């Protein structure tokens, strides 16, 4: 049935949760809804995907099926930008979306793209153009959000079997913050709670760093890689007062992934089927997934 079909691809879950977050922000947190911005992100991403798929896509699959399969990923990237990146200029928004999608086709090693598309788009727009920004405070730190984001995030990552990534990053980051804020500086506990319950941090931990295509294949290597990101991000955030440090560090750490994959051999990521999916369907999805730019 329709619902069962939906559950086969974890990306649909991600889209669902991302749309919940965006609606939550607009309707409950009273964000100013920047429709022109969201439309720019989505339109540019989709057009870029269509164009690059046409010229650079793997020709062994039909164009239409490649597009059908890659569109959910494009929507995820667009939501990622809508949730995290702000700008006053339509050109900057278009640039961020273009960079996100184009990087999947242009920056590839061993058939795998290097950068998390939306993370790269965000970093490019903020640091290279200087005309976009990231609002770490936009989620506030209500306990309800903490709970909601964690649960929803948990489901998403268990669907794609990469919970280790989230926990390694978040655990290390939170532990370092705890040591610094509570043990060393002696702030009261609610000071620390406010630091780790920001929606932006959780969104990053569960929806950005977990992208299965841009993390090391080997489990231990992957955990260490996440911890490294957490340590550097903690340093930049705490001592250099940088906002959005985890995203920047993630982008900088992603070129290491092919090297780590070379040193630590492991089977590449595969979408594990939900029980309802038969072997043939699973094989198709994995063949397509590993060969296309999604």
């Amino acid at each position, binding site marked *: 049935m329709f619902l069962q079909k939906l559950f086969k691809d974890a990306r649909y879950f991600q889209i669902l949760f991302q749309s919940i977050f965006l609606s939550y922000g607009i309707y409950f*947190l009273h964000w100013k809804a920047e429709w022109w911005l969201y439309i720019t992100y989505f339109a540019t991403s989709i057009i870029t995907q269509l164009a690059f798929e046409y010229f650079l896509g793997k020709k062994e699959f039909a164009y239409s099926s490649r597009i059908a399969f890659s569109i959910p990923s494009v929507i995820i990237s667009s939501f990622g930008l809508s949730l995290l990146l702000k700008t*006053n200029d339509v050109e900057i928004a278009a640039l961020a979306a273009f960079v996100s999608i184009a990087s999947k086709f242009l920056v590839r090693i061993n058939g795998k793209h290097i950068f998390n598309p939306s993370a790269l788009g965000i970093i490019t727009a903020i640091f290279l153009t200087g*005309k*976009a*920004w990231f*609002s*770490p405070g936009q989620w506030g730190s209500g306990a309800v959000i903490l709970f909601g984001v964690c649960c929803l995030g948990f489901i998403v990552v268990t669907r794609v079997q990469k919970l280790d990534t989230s926990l390694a990053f978040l655990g290390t980051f939170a532990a370092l913050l705890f040591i610094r804020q509570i043990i060393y500086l*002696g702030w009261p506990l609610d000071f620390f709670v*406010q*630091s780790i319950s920001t929606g932006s941090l959780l969104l990053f931990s569960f929806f950005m760093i977990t992208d299965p295509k841009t993390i090391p294949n080997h489990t231990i290597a992957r955990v260490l890689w996440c911890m490294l990101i957490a340590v550097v991000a903690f340093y930049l955030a705490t001592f250099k007062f940088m906002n959005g440090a985890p995203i920047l560090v993630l982008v900088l750490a992603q070129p290491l992934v092919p090297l780590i994959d070379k040193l630590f051999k492991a089977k590449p990521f595969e979408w594990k089927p939900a029980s309802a999916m038969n072997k043939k369907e699973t094989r198709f999805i994995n063949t397509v997934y590993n060969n296309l730019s999604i």
Partner: protein
Amino acid sequence: MKMKKLILGAVVISSLLLMSFCGFYVSKADGTLKNKTSQVILVRDGNKNVITMYNDFKGDTKDFAMVVPVPVVLKKEDVKVVDQGVFQRLNDYSAPRLVEYWDQNPCQGYYNEDKMAPMANKSLSEVVVSGYGNVRKKETVKIEAQYLIGEYDILILSAKGSSGFKTWLNENGYKIPANAEEVLDPYIKSNLKFFVVKVNEKEKAKLANNFLRPIQIKFTSPKFMLPIRLGMANADGDQDLIVYAFTRKGRIECTNYRNANIATDKNIPLFVQKNFNAFYGNLFTTQWKKEDKNVAFLEYAWDVSPQNYYHCDPCIATAPSAQDLVQSGVWWLNGKDWSDYSDVDDEEYDNGSKNVHFTRLHFRYNRNSFAQDLMFQVTPNTETFQARYVITHPAQGDMSCDAGKKYLKELRERRKKELKELAVLTGKDMNTWQEDAMAFADEDEQKNEATQYATIIDSASKEEENHSPIGILSLTALMLGGAGLMRYKGMI
């Protein structure tokens, strides 16, 4: 319907502006000094900061001192006193505003001429401070610098541990608020210094005025923050803080609390002009509760560069002059660069831009909702914003023509909407405004009884009583039906 736009003077929310601040006051007598509201000017470009603090206290101001945590040891050149009037001008200019429009009489095709209502400025309450005790040097506390600036004796202290610092303050006759202790240790370990201000009676006697001028400090630090935690120590409950920020790039925003825009561009009943202060006070409190009491409210954001002509729409006071901006610490105007202004080495590239972006943020904080100090960032956001409320005067004269009757009907509907808006914005039921509405009836330009606010409130409250819960019933039916359908189809 043609409308004529006029401007009514801004009415400062004077009740909210009984200033206080981000450090804490140390009282030598029994700690009756309380600070409720503060105003701070922040100027930030790159890692350069200028902070100007305006203080006001409640209670007996005798025997007073002020302690502010600062990230670096300030040199004498880094501290100065500025004209108090700057705060008044910035406040007047960026405060929430009431705008007036006039309806045209549909029967006569005539409308009132523009008239400018007088500015309803209220002065900020004045700061009166006197007295201070001796300061002795103690081993655990190091006096990093000591100098006289204007009417102030200033000490920059660094401490090894909070207990030593506490002992020092106690031995020198300062009572520390009990709540201040929990933050002293973290501040000391974060390597913050303490900027202690006292009044030099001799110097003060030379001045004609009897208030203390705002103190301005400048320093280079990547930290862009305001230490509010110390200020919570001696405040009763909620404290208001108004931040006027100037940058070259765009708006500032708070990075560790949510940012929200205060409700703006709302049509409200005419009688609100009688007491705009109370209206805005209610509105702010309602919004603050709605946003869970831990947000930074944006009240104004605009490019106020001297070369930019439009700074608001409508403007409610004269724009701050270039001189005001320079007084506020905007060092890049007026040919002054940071090195003229200070002896700090100018390591950063100065692009020579003369742009000035003004952001006004309004916080209301207490210990429970604000566990952390306020952290900020400069964003490239150049979108403008102002808190603006609109009142519309009705047309006057004979309304016996058809268009006139139609106008009266529309007027009634419009006023009903205005009243509903008022109730939503202030969180107070329409009936609570009945008294104001009745008091206003005599002054109303439109004497037709059906269009009077008081009449509309009466009939609206009757309508509400008759309201049947159709909406809720139909929604429930719809949900049950949907669930039944899904069950039938085997989806759940």
